[in-house]
C-alpha cells in the first residue's frame, strides 16, 4: 500500500464513522460511542504506523476536481511534511484519548449519538486541514471544523447560554473567515494557483514575491479560529459545550489549527505581517492572563489560559520560528487537554458544578485527577524539565535572543510581555490548583466527590502523568538524566518530532541557538523566579481553598475589570446594539422607502396606470376598435404627410 492511500484511509475513517453514527445510530447510546472510539483508535494506530514508516520526505499527491477552461483547475490532494507529521500525531493521539474520556464523561447524557457523531465529523475535518495541500481545500475543512465546533458547543441546546454561545462563535468566526476567503481569492489571483507547495516554489525561486496583504488576510482566518485579539470573545463562551469538546476542539486541536495554517503558509508572511502577529500574540499572552485571574468558572479560566498560550504560539511565529510554534502547539495540546480533562473529571464528580469556589479539598478524594492536574500545571507554567518548559521558555528566550542580536525593539517588548505572561500563568494556575484541590470542600456537592471511572482516569494518566511531563524530553538529545527518559518515546517517533520542530528553519534549535549566543542566563533565572514567585504568592493567597475569591474582596474594582475581561463584550455589544443597529435601521429605511416604495412599487404603479387607460378602450364593441384603429391610421398618415411636426 502506498503512503498516500494510507493517508486517505486515515482521513476517511472518521467520515465513515460519522456517517454510520448520524444515519443509523442517532439514538444509539453506547453503540455510537463504540463506533466513534473505534474509529479514533484506528486513526491513531494507522497514523503511528504511517509515521514510523515515513522517511521524512515531503509527500504530495493530488487529483483534479474541477477543470475550468484551459487555465483554471481546482485540485484536491495531500501535502505531507514535517509540520503535518507533528500535527497528525497530536490530533490522532490526543483525539483518541479524549474520545475515551468522553465515554465516561457523557455516561449520563441522553444524546450520545449526536455528540459522538459530532466528534467524528470533527476528527475528519481536522485531519483534512492537516493533510490538505491547497488553500481552497483548507478552507472547506476550515468551515467543517467550524461547523462541528458550533454543533458541539450547542450540544446542550435546551440551555439558552449554550445556544447563544454557539451563535456567538459562529458569528465571530464569520468575520475572520471572510477575510480568510478574500485572502485565498487574492492569493489564487496573484500566484495563479492555490496549491501551497507551488506557491512556496514560486516564492522560493523569486518568480513572485510574498504580499503583505495576502498574509494579513490569511491571518484573519487564524485570528478568528484561534480567537486572537480582537476576535477573542467567542472562545470563553464556547466553554458552554461539554468538557471533552472544550479539551479537544477548543484547546488542543481546532484553535491550534490557525497556528498550524500560519506555519504552513509561513513563506507567505512578510516581515510586516510577522511583526503584526508578534504584537497580537504577545499582547494576548498578557491580556488573557489577567482575564483568567477574574474568572470563577473553572473552564473559563482554562479558556483564557488557552488564549494566552495561543498568543505564545503566535509570538513564536512572529519571531520567525515556525517550528517552535508547532512544538509549543504539540506540548500545549498535551497539557491543556489534560487540564481540561481534569476539570471535566472534577465537574463530573461534583455533579456539573463549575464554580471553583464551590469546590475545594479534592486532592484526597480524587488523587489521580489531582496528580494529573498538578503535573499539567507545572508543565503549563514552564517548570524546568516538564514538557511546557522546552517550548514556552524557548519562546521567551528566543524573543530575548532576537532582541540581543539587534533585530529591533519590538522583540524586547515581546520578551517583556511574554515574561509577564509567564508570571500570570503561574498566578492563575496556582490559584486554580489551590482553590480546587486544597482546603475544605465548600459545598455539599464537593464533599461527596469521588474519583472518576477508568474511562476518565486512564486518559488522565496517559496525557497528564506521562505526556505533560515527558513530551519534551526527547527534544534535547541528552534528555534528562543522561537520556534515561528517552526510552519512554520510540526513537522513530522522537526522530520525526525533532525534525518536525527543527524542520521549518530556523525552528526550535534556531531560537535556542540565538539565545545561547546572547549569553543572558539571567533570563532563565528570571523565568524560574517568576514561576516560583507566582506559586508562592498564590499559595499564601489561596492556599486554604477559600470559599470566595480574596482578590474580589480585597480589590473589587480590579477584579471587576478582569471579570468583564476588559469590557470587550460590552464594547461589542454597544457597537452592535447602537452603532450597527442605527446603520441597519437607516439601510432598512432606504430599502423600504426609496427602493421598495419608489422604484419597485413606482414601476408597478406606472404599469397599472397604463393598464387603467388601455382597459377603458377595450369595451368589446367592434366599432370602438375600428374607431381607434382609424384614428391611429389618420395620426400616422398625418405624420407621414408632414402635417404634424
Amino acid at each position: 500500500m502506498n503512503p498516500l492511500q494510507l493517508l486517505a484511509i486515515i482521513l476517511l475513517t472518521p467520515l465513515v464513522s460519522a456517517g454510520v453514527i448520524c444515519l443509523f445510530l442517532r439514538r444509539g447510546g453506547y453503540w455510537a460511542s463504540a463506533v466513534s472510539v473505534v474509529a479514533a483508535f484506528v486513526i491513531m494506530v494507522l497514523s503511528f504506523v504511517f509515521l514510523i514508516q515515513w522517511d521524512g520526505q515531503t509527500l504530495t499527491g493530488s487529483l483534479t476536481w474541477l477543470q475550468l477552461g484551459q487555465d483554471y483547475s481546482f485540485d484536491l490532494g495531500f501535502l505531507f511534511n514535517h509540520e503535518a507529521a507533528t500535527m497528525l500525531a497530536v490530533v490522532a493521539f490526543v483525539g483518541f484519548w479524549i474520545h475515551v474520556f468522553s465515554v465516561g464523561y457523557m455516561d449520563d447524557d441522553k444524546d450520545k449519538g449526536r455528540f459522538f457523531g459530532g466528534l467524528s465529523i470533527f476528527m475528519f475535518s481536522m485531519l483534512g486541514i492537516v493533510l490538505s495541500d491547497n488553500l481552497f481545500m483548507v478552507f472547506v475543512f476550515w468551515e467543517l471544523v467550524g461547523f462541528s465546533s458550533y454543533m458541539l458547543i450547542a450540544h446542550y441546546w435546551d440551555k439558552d447560554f449554550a445556544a447563544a454561545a454557539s451563535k456567538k462563535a459562529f458569528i465571530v468566526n464569520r468575520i475572520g473567515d471572510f477575510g480568510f476567503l478574500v485572502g485565498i481569492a487574492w492569493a489564487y489571483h496573484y500566484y495563479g494557483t492555490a496549491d501551497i507547495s507551488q506557491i512556496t516554489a514560486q516564492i522560493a525561486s523569486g518568480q513572485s514575491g510574498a504580499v503583505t496583504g495576502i498574509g494579513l488576510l490569511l491571518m484573519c482566518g487564524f485570528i478568528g479560529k484561534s480567537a486572537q485579539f480582537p476576535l477573542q470573545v467567542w472562545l470563553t463562551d464556547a466553554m458552554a459545550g461539554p468538557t471533552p469538546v472544550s479539551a479537544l476542539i477548543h484547546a488542543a486541536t481546532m484553535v491550534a489549527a490557525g497556528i498550524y495554517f500560519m506555519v504552513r503558509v509561513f513563506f507567505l508572511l512578510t516581515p510586516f505581517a510577522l511583526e503584526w502577529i508578534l504584537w497580537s500574540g504577545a499582547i494576548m499572552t498578557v491580556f488573557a492572563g489577567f482575564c483568567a485571574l477574574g474568572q470563577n468558572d473553572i473552564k473559563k479560566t482554562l479558556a483564557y489560559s488557552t488564549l494566552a498560550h495561543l498568543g505564545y504560539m503566535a509570538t513564536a511565529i512572529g519571531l520567525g520560528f515556525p517550528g517552535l510554534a508547532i512544538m509549543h502547539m504539540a506540548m500545549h495540546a498535551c497539557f491543556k487537554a489534560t487540564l481540561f480533562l481534569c476539570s471535566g473529571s472534577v465537574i463530573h464528580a461534583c455533579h456539573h458544578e463549575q464554580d471553583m469556589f464551590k469546590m475545594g479539598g479534592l486532592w484526597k478524594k480524587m488523587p489521580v485527577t489531582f496528580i494529573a492536574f498538578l503535573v499539567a500545571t507545572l508543565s503549563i507554567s514552564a517548570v524546568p524539565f516538564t514538557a511546557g518548559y522546552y517550548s514556552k521558555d524557548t519562546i521567551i528566550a528566543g524573543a530575548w535572543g532576537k532582541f540581543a542580536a539587534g533585530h529591533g525593539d519590538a522583540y524586547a517588548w515581546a520578551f517583556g510581555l511574554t515574561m509577564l505572561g509567564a508570571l500570570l500563568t503561574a498566578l492563575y494556575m496556582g490559584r486554580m490548583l489551590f482553590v480546587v484541590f486544597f482546603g475544605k470542600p465548600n459545598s455539599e456537592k464537593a464533599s461527596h466527590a469521588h474519583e472518576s471511572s477508568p474511562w476518565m482516569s486512564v486518559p488522565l494518566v496517559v496525557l497528564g502523568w506521562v505526556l505533560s511531563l515527558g513530551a519534551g524530553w526527547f527534544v534535547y538529545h541528552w534528555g534528562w538524566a543522561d537520556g534515561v527518559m528517552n526510552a519512554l518515546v520510540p526513537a522513530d517517533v522522537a526522530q520525526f518530532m525533532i525534525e518536525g520542530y527543527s524542520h521549518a528553519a530556523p525552528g526550535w534549535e534556531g531560537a535556542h541557538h540565538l539565545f545561547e549566543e546572547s549569553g543572558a542566563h539571567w533570563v532563565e533565572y528570571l523565568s524560574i523566579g517568576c514561576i516560583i514567585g507566582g506559586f508562592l504568592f498564590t499559595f499564601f493567597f489561596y492556599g486554604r481553598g477559600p470559599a470566595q475569591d480574596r482578590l474580589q474582596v480585597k480589590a473589587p474594582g480590579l477584579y471587576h475589570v478582569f471579570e468583564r475581561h476588559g469590557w470587550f463584550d460590552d464594547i461589542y455589544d454597544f457597537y452592535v446594539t447602537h452603532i450597527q443597529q442605527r446603520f441597519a435601521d437607516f439601510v432598512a429605511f432606504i430599502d423600504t422607502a426609496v427602493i421598495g416604495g419608489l422604484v419597485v412599487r413606482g414601476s408597478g404603479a406606472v404599469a397599472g396606470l397604463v393598464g387603467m387607460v388601455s382597459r377603458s378602450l377595450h369595451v368589446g364593441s367592434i366599432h370602438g376598435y375600428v374607431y381607434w384603429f382609424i384614428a391611429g391610421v389618420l395620426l400616422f398618415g398625418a405624420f407621414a404627410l408632414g402635417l404634424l411636426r
Partner: protein
Amino acid sequence: MSGIGLNAYLFVAGLLFALGFFGVLLRRNTLVIYMCMELMLNAVNLALVAFSRFNRTMDGNIFVFFIITVAAAEVAVGLAIIVALYRKRRTVQVEELNALSN
C-alpha cells in the same frame, strides 16, 4: 379620354373610400361592414389604376393585381368566420357579439 382627368378618378376613389369608411363605422350588420371594407379596397384599386394610367407605368396595375388576389383570399377567410359566427350565435348584429367585453 379628353375632359376626364386624373382628379376625377381620384375624386370618385375618395368618395368610394369615404363611403366604405363611414359604412364600417356606422353600420351594425356584419355583412354590410364587410362589404364596406371591400368598397374601401376597391376605392384604393381605382386610385392606383388611375395613377398607373396617368403616370405611364405598370406599377399601379401590379399593385392592383396583388390587392385583388389578397382580397379574394381574405373574402374566403372572412366570410367563413362570419358564417361560423352566425351558426354559433344566430345573429349578425355586431353589438350582440360582445362575449369578450368585461
